[in-house]
């Protein structure tokens, strides 16, 4: 296999959180020993509940947060050794809210071409050319060049955000909930656009979303995150057709397809999401897991291979005491 375009090796991000006014700071492992490899052209869907560390991971990849341990490699090169500017040329973000991610005082032309000026690429004429090309690419007419974000609809704004990310010809685009703030009819246009751009330019996406139907549609691989760890990762078909981790299953069950013959599903996730400062012992998921046994409370599961990826669950560990090869959830 060729060098992965993006690789995370045992990445850990620990924050120190103060408990109360005079409390001693406690460590909070927002990202706990995460390893991911992404080949060129892949779309990794990252799913999980709020607070699971998805956005921290995105910030690390964008160079907005340093890792506490472990390394991030782009094309085999560690990004700690590259400067921020070099990294930004290769990894660009698209954020959730196109209302707050665009400067309201700047014109669309200013916003989209700013990366070129920051990185000192080309002269005024070539910048103008790539500006027009990029806008055309995302389906915006050139008459919007001198308008302001407030004059545009939500879908148009998200197109501006995509144009701003693409004008640098990045290899990797981090999409953090790119369509959650949009209406469904606009969401489908943006998803189609992202899909077309990927095919055309061989882009690699890290696609963070809470909408599993959207992730299933767009992603080629899926990573399920729980309390800072990737508890299951697999090719999209393998994960959606045969989820191995009980948490993946609960997430998939909670997808509400527009089928009126079915009621609201029972996710069987009784307890609430745990406090990440004080994570449960053993397997972090055990308090909410319908299959938990005593072994889960004491011992953390290790990653074991599964079809198309890996899973962290005692039920799937052939060397563990709870192994059940027939177990499909």
């Amino acid at each position: 296999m060729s060098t992965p375009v993006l690789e995370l090796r045992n990445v850990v991000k620990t924050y120190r959180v103060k408990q109360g006014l005079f409390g001693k700071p406690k460590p909070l492992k927002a990202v706990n020993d995460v390893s991911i490899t992404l080949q060129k052209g892949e779309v990794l869907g990252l799913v999980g509940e709020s607070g699971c560390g998805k956005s921290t991971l995105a910030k690390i990849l964008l160079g907005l947060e340093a890792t506490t341990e472990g390394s991030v490699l782009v094309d085999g090169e560690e990004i700690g050794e590259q400067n921020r500017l070099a990294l930004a040329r290769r990894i660009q973000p698209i954020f959730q809210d196109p209302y707050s991610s665009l400067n309201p005082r700047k014109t669309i032309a200013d916003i989209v071409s700013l990366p070129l000026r920051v990185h000192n690429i080309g002269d005024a004429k070539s910048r103008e050319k790539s500006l027009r090309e990029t806008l055309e690419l995302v389906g915006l007419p050139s008459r919007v060049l001198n308008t302001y974000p407030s004059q545009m609809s939500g879908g148009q704004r998200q197109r501006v955000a995509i144009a701003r990310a693409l004008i640098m010809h990045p290899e990797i685009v981090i999409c953090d909930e790119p369509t959650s703030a949009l209406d469904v009819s606009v969401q489908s246009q943006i998803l189609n656009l992202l899909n077309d751009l990927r095919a055309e330019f061989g882009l690699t996406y890290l696609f963070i979303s809470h909408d599993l139907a959207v992730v299933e549609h767009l992603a080629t691989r899926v990573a399920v995150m729980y309390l800072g760890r990737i508890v299951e990762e697999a090719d999209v078909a393998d994960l959606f057709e045969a989820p191995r981790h009980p948490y993946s299953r609960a997430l998939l069950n909670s997808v509400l397809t527009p089928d009126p013959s079915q009621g609201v599903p029972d996710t069987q996730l009784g307890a609430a999401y745990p406090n990440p400062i004080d994570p449960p012992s053993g397997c972090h998921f055990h308090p909410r897991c319908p299959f938990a046994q005593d072994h889960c409370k004491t011992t953390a599961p290790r990653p074991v291979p599964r079809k198309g990826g890996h899973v962290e669950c005692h039920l799937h560990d052939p060397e563990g005491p709870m192994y059940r090869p027939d177990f499909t959830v």
Partner: protein
Amino acid sequence: MNDMTKPLLSVRGLTLDIPMSNGTLHAVRALDFDLHRGETLCIVGESGSGKSLTSLAVIGLLEKNIRRNATQMNFDGTDLLTASKKQMRALRGNRIAMIFQEPMTSLNPAYTIGDQLIEALRLHKNVSREKARNRAIELLEKVGITAAASRLGQYPHQLSGGLRQRVVIAMALMCEPELIIADEPTTALDVTIQAQILSLLVDLTREMDVAMILITHDLGVVARVADKVGVMYAGELVESGPAADVFGKPLHPYTRGLLRCIPQPGKTERGAALGTIPGIVPSLIGDVKGCAFRTRCPHAVEACRDAIPERGEPPHKFLCVHPDGARAAEGEPA
């Protein structure tokens, strides 16, 4: 469910106009709907379709500049059009309860959960503090909150988003309402919590025979929760009917368009292009005539500029010039 009984809420010809500097914005136009006891009506639509304004019009919480007109707006014998402010205050939070999207905005951060739950009941009913407190504990347990008695002393910020929304639901139930209006109650929550909150609402409304108007943009939520569906576009109810009919045989081109926009696991091919609805919602300022969807509809004809007939066999109704809602033109079975 029984059509023979009188509806709990009956709305006819609801029209909401907002005066703007450049003309009048016709935000909601000629809306009709009925809701019976124990029934759940989901109103689905995109931003700006007027779905939230419709619910605020029912409970009389519209901004002062919005003009409300209707031929009928009746809640169990009370005429909501002529009801005084005092009468409306007596209804709200009592016989008609509300649940909004963001639980933090419906809870007062400076008071404990207990104070707020108890006040909700004692404001409308003459009961002792102790009785109110017991009812609060009972309802917190009912909405699935453990250690309910000890939660009463907690403040909203000490609870997670899912727990806060459960408290808001418990508060809505304090006075045993007959109608609950829930405006995007799960939009701010995680999918796993969303499923829990929705099944809680469905179970409680069934158990207590409460009617519910649920406003949402999420077709998945509608399909799983609704008895009746109303699809709103640009201020009009373009299609309405029993959930199984609207999803099984969507008649309005907009409803079908919406359903094609969302990826449906098992139905949509992974990575294939999703359906789109080109264009944007038209301005509703000034004279609004004909079908508002015609600028985005693939089946628009000259006649769409004129008044649009109501079609369909009740209770499944839709607004379209095409007798079959152009289903045949899209190769759908009639």
